[in-house]
């Protein structure tokens, strides 16, 4: 997916961006003595697709995980769709059911069938009836292109299929925001495309997405904004065209020269 011609193409998405759905102000986070986030301030608008790139250890995964409080931040404020993320458990659970996340390692539940993997939260958080939940599961699996796998267990599926199930599981909660934490990094090369295609389709449908990835082709083709992080800070951000063709910061130029 490092097709250079994509750079010339303007973003294909023509929908208007909505209100500010994620607002971060001076977010800081420490792991012991090590400061992972050194003051992140940014906003994401509804339907925007933000791709975060950066070297490993730059804090991009940590930042993504603070957005649904899998990592609690130590300082600063994070407001998701008008609700502040803090120690109030009710806020946290409300936000989590509206923010879907897809992990690098899929994290499907190995003891449950694909159907139960997807319907678990529907029946236990949304309190749907089993029959209604199953209808939704079938339609979601059709959307990610694997309806025939419904009765299998995760271990019986390929990596790409598992990641598509993980996306379907997150979508089942009808989230307003989807977070992707290096969704293709654990996949064999031939399976990366099927997952990126699903993500592309999701972006087309107007989903707000924050994606940590090393897939530059996806970043160029789908993102509204690229955010480059290093050492716990946002170094530079801009549209794909600006970012890839005219990077301003030296660190950005160095990083781009190493990966492209």
């Amino acid at each position: 997916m490092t097709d250079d011609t994509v750079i010339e193409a303007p973003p294909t998405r023509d929908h208007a961006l909505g209100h500010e759905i994620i607002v971060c102000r001076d977010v800081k986070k420490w792991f012991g003595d090590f400061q992972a986030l050194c003051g992140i301030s940014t906003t994401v608008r509804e339907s925007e697709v933000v791709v975060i790139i950066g070297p490993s250890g730059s804090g991009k995964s940590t930042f993504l995980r603070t957005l649904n409080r899998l990592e609690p931040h130590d300082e600063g404020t994070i407001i998701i769709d008008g609700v502040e993320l803090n120690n109030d458990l009710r806020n946290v659970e409300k936000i989590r059911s509206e923010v879907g996340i897809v992990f690098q390692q899929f994290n499907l539940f190995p003891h449950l069938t694909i159907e139960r993997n997807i319907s678990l939260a529907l029946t236990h958080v949304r309190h749907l009836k089993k029959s209604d939940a199953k209808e939704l599961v079938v339609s979601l699996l059709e959307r990610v292109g694997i309806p025939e796998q419904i009765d299998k267990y995760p271990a019986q599926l390929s990596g790409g299929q598992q990641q598509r199930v993980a996306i379907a599981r997150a979508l089942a909660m009808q989230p307003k925001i989807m977070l992707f934490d290096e969704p293709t990094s654990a996949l064999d090369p031939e399976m990366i495309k099927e997952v990126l295609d699903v993500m592309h389709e999701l972006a087309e449908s107007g989903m707000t997405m924050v994606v940590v990835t090393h897939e530059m082709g996806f970043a160029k083709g789908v993102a509204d904004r690229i955010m480059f992080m290093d050492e716990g800070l946002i170094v530079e951000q801009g549209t794909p065209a600006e970012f890839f063709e005219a990077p301003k910061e030296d660190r950005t130029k160095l990083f781009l020269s190493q990966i492209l």
Partner: protein
Amino acid sequence: MTAQSRPIAPALPPHVVAYRWARANLFSSPGNAVLTIVTVAILGLAAYQGSRFVFATAEWEIIEANRGLFFTGRFPRDEFWRIWVTLHGVAVLFGLSWRLWGTLSWRLPLVFAAACVPLYVFMLEGWAILWTSTSIAAFAAAYFAAWPVRFSRFRDLARNLTVWLWILGFAAAMLPTALYPSFLPGQGGLFSHVPDREWGGLFLTMVLAIVGIAVSFPLGVLLAVGRASTFPVIRIFCVAYIEMVRAVPLITILFMSFFILRLAIRHETSILGIPITGYEVSVVFMAMLGFVLFSAAYIAEIVRGGLQAVPRGQIEAGQALGLGGVQVLALIVLPQALRAVIPALVSQFISLFKDTSLVFILALTDLLAVSRIAPAQPGFIGLHAEALLFIGLIYWVIAFSMSRASQQLERNLGVGER
């Protein structure tokens, strides 16, 4: 030998094959040859003496004459119906469960039945044959009654119902033991009191083992979860309990529950002027308590190992879906944790089952105690070997069945393992 290699291998007469196998495996060197001959001699002698004892010299009358003692101790004959009713209830529930979950194969009961043949030969007579047969019939009837439900839309309902029947049946069978004599109506009538000193034999062993397992398992899971809790008070309590109990021999706990706890409960006293009535607790109940408290600590440590084996990402995935802490634990973490530790759990259950023989120190006549009483009776003096062999067989049949059942369970739950 695999199917593919067969056509290639030259067909040899069987005695040549046997000769070559023996040369390669048994007589490959002079040392091995000596070892083989000595081993065969010892095994042959043991087998000869063993079968001569079992089939010729042993006086099995001691078992036949003491059937009641071995199976139920001094339980009054007039009250045997209680045991039979319980047995029928268990048979029905087993039949239902078997079909509704359907995780066990038919090989298991066949193995079990075969191993039980010597027991039938000795133990069944008159009414016992009838009631044993009706128990088996009740099992089969329940199994086939549940047959059509397995794949119908009532399956989940039936499963819930069966689980509740198990729990209620267990409580109904056990509560009178725990509460007597304070709450039940007095002597006489349908539920007249059978003093626990009269319980005994296999019946007592099974009651202790089943209660021990059924109660200590959930308690152990709670302790393990508590130990992993983020609340310091709960965590410290659980750690303290587990470490304290594991540092004390089982026999000490049994003694303490019998001599200290039971007497303390019986003691009439007053606190701040409020009189506290003494409360007579049965010895069997105190023994159960001892086993439960002891076993729970070990089960907690086993389950803790399982909890630690569940990857962090599983918990995060559950939380990210908006599931609460208890839901993540019950729906995601515990099912995976328990599955991972089935072998260790079952061996803990088996050792608890065998440890019940320690109740002889509380002067209860369990299966082991019976095997010491029976050869002390006039007419059977000194027939220890017969009695011990017989109860050894019973212990083995039950422990082996548990082990096979656990393997089956593991295989069936293994679906979808990574």
